[in-house]
C-alpha cells in the first residue's frame, strides 16, 4: 500500500468508528485523539480493526506510534507494504 492508501485506510476506519468524525480541519501532525475528541476505547477500535483487516498484531507499548495521522502512516508503511 502506498502512503496515501494507508492514510485513507486510517481515515476510513475512524469514519466507521465515529459517524460524527470531521476531517476538514484535521492536521496530520497533531494527535488524532485530541482533534477528533476520541477516547481510549475508540483508540482500541483502530487497533482492533487493523488486526481484523490485515492480521496486524500491534503490541500495547507501540500504541503511541499511532498517535497522529503521519505517525500512523510511518508506522504502518513497512507493515502494510505487501497489501
Amino acid at each position: 500500500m502506498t502512503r496515501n492508501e494507508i492514510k485513507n485506510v486510517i481515515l476510513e476506519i475512524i469514519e466507521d468508528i465515529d459517524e460524527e468524525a470531521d476531517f476538514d480541519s484535521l492536521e496530520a501532525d497533531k494527535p488524532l485523539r485530541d482533534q477528533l475528541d476520541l477516547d481510549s476505547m475508540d483508540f482500541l477500535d483502530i487497533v482492533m480493526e487493523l488486526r481484523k483487516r490485515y492480521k496486524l498484531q500491534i503490541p500495547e507499548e507501540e500504541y503511541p506510534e499511532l498517535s497522529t495521522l503521519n505517525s500512523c502512516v510511518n508506522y504502518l508503511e513497512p507493515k502494510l507494504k505487501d497489501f
Partner: protein
Amino acid sequence: MADYQLIIIGAGLSGLAAGIRAARFGLKVLIVEQHWQPGGLNSFYFRQGHLLETGLHAMTNYAPPEEKRAPLNRLFRQLRLSRRSFRTHEQICSEIVFPDRTLRFSNDPDLLTEDISREFPGAADGFRRLLDMVRDYDPFAPAPWRSARRFLDGVLPDGRLADMLLLPLMVYGNSEEEDMDLGQFVIMFRALFLEGLFRPAETIKEFLDMLVDHYTAFGGEIRFRAGVKRILRRGDRVDGVVLHNGERITAGSVLSTAGIPATADLADWDIDRSAYRGKMSFMETIYLLPLRRGASIRNDRTIIFFNHGEHFAYRCPGEALETSWGVICFPGNFKGLPGTDPFQVRVTNAANYEVWKAAAPGEYEMMKERWRERSADQVGKIIGNFRQDVVYVDSFTPMTIERFTAKAGGAVYGSPVKLKDGRTHCANLFIAGTDQGYLGIVGAMLSGVTIINRHLLRQE
C-alpha cells in the same frame, strides 16, 4: 478446537452488548439464553393486544449525538450502532415529592438547582460544591467503599435534601440497603440529574430486535430456550457449558451475565453466596387507563419519585411491600411522543422476596391484589384517585423477576458487592452485567462492552 471462542450466558442487555462487541472483531461467539426471547430484566410481553415493557421507565444518560464523550454515545460507537438513527424522546419533567417539599428535575440541570435554592435556601452553596465534586470525581478509579450518606452529610446542611436526592438515585441503581457507595452515587447522579432521562421512539422490543440483528449481522450466533445447567470446569479453567437438555458446547472463554450467585452455582464456585445476594427487589404494577380519564389525574410529569415518610429509608421492607415510598412513571409523557389510548401508569414499590416466596400458590394472586390496593392508595395521594378507571392491570413481583431472569432473590440490581474487574475463580470465566457494577440499561450494556474489551480483545 473448542466449538466457540466465547460463550455468553444470557441475552439480556449486557449479554447482547458483549456479544456485539466480540462478534464485531471476528470472535466466534454464541449467546445462550434460557428464555424464548431476549431482554432479561428489560423485556416485554403481550396482554390483550398491548405490548407491555417489563422494565423500562426511562433510559438514563441522555446525550445528544454530538457529545462524543457522553457514555451513551461512547456505547453506540463501541457497538458500531448509529446514534444518529436512534430516535429518542427526552423526558418532559420529573419530580421528587416529599411531605411539604417538591424538587423538579429535567434534562436541564439548572431546573434542579433552581428548585433546591427555592426549597432549601440554606443549601445552595453546599449543592454547588456537591455538583463540583460530582463533575470532578473519577468513579471508575479503583477505590475502597465510601459512604455517600456521610459525604452528603458533610456538604448539605439539611438531611432532608440528601434523602430527596438519594431516592431517585437509589431506586434506579443501588443494590445496597440504607447507603450507597460514593462512586456509584456519582455514576447515578450524572446519569439522572446531569445527563437525564429519555426513551427510545419505539418500544424495547424494537430496540432488542435491533441489537439481535446487529449481532447476527456480525456473525454472532444466538440460541433461545437454551438454559445453561452447568459450566464445565477443569481446575482453574472452564471448557464450556452443558445445557439443560444435556448438550455440551465447548468454548475458549465463558462470560456469564446470570449474576454472581447463579454463576457460582453453575461453576462450583466456592464463595459465600449470602454476601452476593442482593436484598433490594421490587413489585412493578402496570395500569392502563382510558385517555379520556387522563385529565382527572395529575398527569404532567414523566416520573414522580415519592416518599410519604419524614425520612427515606432504602431497604427491603419487613412486609410484602413498601408502600410509603416508590416511583410513579408515565411512559407516555416524553417530549414529542404521540398519546396512546389507553395510556399507561407504572408504579414501583420495594418488595420483600422472602414474603412473596412463602406465599402458597392460591394465596399469591390475592396477595398481589391486596398489596396493589394499598400501593394505589398511596399513589392516589399524589396523582389523585384513579382506581375506578383502570381498564387493565398487571403486577410482577420478586418471584416473577427470579423466574424470568434467574436473578437470585429477584434482586433487580444484583449483588451489593460488585466484582468490578469481572474476574472469577477461573482464569477464562468472566462476569458482566448487574453484578459487575454498572446498573440500568445503559450501564448493563457498558458493562458487557467493558468486560469484552478488557478480557477478550486485549488478550491473545
